[in-house]
């Protein structure tokens, strides 16, 4: 018996038989998690460019409110023209003291993003460090990385299971940022199964404690394909502060080019 078992043909057969269930299962939790985000990415391909108006309402523990208004424009990267990440332009409208201030970000996949800030009072374009991911965005509960365009390779993934969230059947996926500059150690993301839209994110800070919860609602579909959120709520779980973001006036495919996201275009951004 022992001899039989150890003879090469039997070994071969046994290993084939052992592999069958693996082939059927096909995916590990890591693979399934990643596949969900690849599908999100795939469904958003070729949007070209879009812009929207964003209003942020910042609230502190005692309920005081403050408002930020800006215009956000995104040019899709990774297409035939741009072999790199997305490019974004944000022009601030309120607080009025900083109105006209504009920020351009060129996202990169393998290195820090490039960022330029235009200060209208000085007529100055200032290069700023793109390593500022974890920093607060204009005093809100959103950090730069929360608002930055997301690439699949920015995280490693692990599928946790299925869960109902907001009456929708969702995948729950854990993702871990690859970048050491990230302010997070891990995030749990709820993605609805029907349209692959992110519904909720739990953020864990560098001490691995739950710091913020983001819920995204009021999705609308544009060009019969692209889903964009109308309302984002970010609530800090540790200091009671929160930021609501309302996004309106989405306009797709205005025919923008890289020239609209250059340092020169910053100087005439209005």
């Amino acid at each position: 018996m022992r001899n039989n078992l150890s003879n090469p043909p039997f070994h071969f057969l046994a290993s084939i038989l052992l592999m069958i269930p693996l082939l059927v299962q096909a995916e590990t939790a890591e693979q399934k998690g990643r596949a969900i985000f690849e599908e999100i990415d795939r469904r958003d391909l070729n949007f070209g460019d879009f812009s929207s108006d964003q209003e942020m309402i910042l609230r502190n523990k005692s309920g005081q409110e403050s408002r930020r208004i800006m215009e956000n424009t995104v040019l899709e990267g990774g297409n035939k023209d741009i072999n790199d990440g997305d490019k974004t332009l944000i022009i601030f409208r309120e607080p009025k003291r900083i109105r006209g201030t504009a920020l351009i970000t060129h996202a990169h996949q393998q290195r820090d993003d490039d960022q330029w800030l235009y200060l209208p009072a000085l007529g100055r374009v200032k290069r700023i460090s793109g390593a500022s991911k974890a920093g607060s965005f204009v005093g809100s509960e959103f950090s730069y990385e929360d608002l930055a365009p997301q690439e699949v390779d920015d995280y490693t993934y692990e599928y946790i299971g299925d869960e109902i969230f907001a009456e929708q059947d969702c995948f729950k996926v854990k993702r871990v940022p690859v970048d050491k500059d990230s302010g997070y150690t891990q995030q749990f993301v709820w993605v609805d199964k029907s349209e692959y839209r992110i519904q909720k994110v739990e953020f864990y800070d560098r001490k691995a404690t739950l710091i913020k919860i983001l819920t995204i609602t009021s999705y609308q579909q544009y060009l019969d394909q692209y889903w964009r959120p109308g309302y984002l709520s970010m609530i800090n779980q540790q200091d009671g502060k929160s930021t609501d973001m309302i996004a309106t006036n989405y306009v797709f495919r205005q025919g923008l080019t890289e020239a609209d996201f250059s340092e020169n275009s910053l100087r005439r951004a209005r």
Partner: protein
Amino acid sequence: MARWLLISVIYIELIIVSLGTSSVAQGGQELDWAALDWKALDWEALDGWELEGEAFAQARYFPDNPLYIGQHSQNQSLALELSAYRKFSDSFSLEFIPFYRHDFQDDERSHLDIRKAYALWASPTLEIGAGINKVFWGVTEAVHLVDIINQTDAIEAPDQEEKLGQAMVSLSLPLPSGLFDLYLMPNFRERNFPGEDGRLRGALVVDTNNPLYEHKDKDHHIDWAARLKQSLKDGELALSYFEGTARDPNLIMPLGTPSPVLLPYYSQIKQLGLEGQYIKDEWLWKLEAIYRKGQPNLQFEVEDYYAMTGGFEYNIYSIFESSQDLGIILEGIYDQRRDNALTFNEEDIVLGTRWSLNNMHSTEVLGLWIQDADSSAHNFVLELSTEIGNSIAVTVEALIFSEQQRNSDSGRFTADSIGHQMRQDDYLQIEIGYFF
């Protein structure tokens, strides 16, 4: 010239729009007075223009006794800046920004300036502009050596960050990851100086009504400048050239005037500028250098010189496990003329911090320590700014001149003596801004 041309353009535009409105009114049998509703008319005429404004009330308190006759221990002023912008098409726009400050103590500090009156035609391959505009060159934070297009609005603030509008015709050519700019500047702007009643000045008042020029064309000499900028993978590099009237005048004391004054003297210069920036993680390394020919030094001897400034900016995000950010700058300044430089920032080390609380009021604290490298003289600036609601901002600023040196060992008037003349001019300033 260009200024008036541009104002005419705006004016003509307004006339056309008003005519359009009134011809509709006259279309009826009788003149319908109700159709000439002034509110409706104004609205039509301004339709398409983005109108904004900022108003400031500023008070300064000087705790030390003034050194010179006529100076006050406090100062109040009001300032207003309006802005009108209109985009006529994707490529053509007009912008008009007048500024006025009224100073209740110093007549010389009361001044009107057109910051911008600029027509811009922009396409992806070319940009042409004409009118009055503001252009900034440079990368460093404490002093701006390369920046030369605009005259400094020196009476606005001692940090020299404010600029006067400059008339120009400009051409911008986007290059693959770069930019080429060319400027023709037909109208020179003189620097302004505090009057007899003003603080932050030297012992002698500068007589701005009688400027002297090296060139016979005086303030109509056509200056020109060009700059080539290239973005690199981890940084930026720019080379610039300027030929024309120096923005910083020599101050000379004419003999035989009834009471001693200083007259500004504007020489003709040629200046080559270099800017470099290298970015690595949270570090920004910066360098600016100039080589200038043709300007007399403090002893009024023509001395070609180079000057440079450079250092780093480092940002720490989320300090103290909070959402607060801290930025640190360290920069050195060196002017080859040293004691004969026209500025007391001739050999200095600057340490600065920017502390952003990232709260809902956008509260920020700025600290700047400027240490003279060859004496114990230093300046210290502390600035706190915060917002109240969406339309009001409050800024508190303190400036301290400390241990300013009178003379060099030889007893001559030197670059550092300029600072010594302002040794009593420490001040505390509060400014309230309203944005509408």
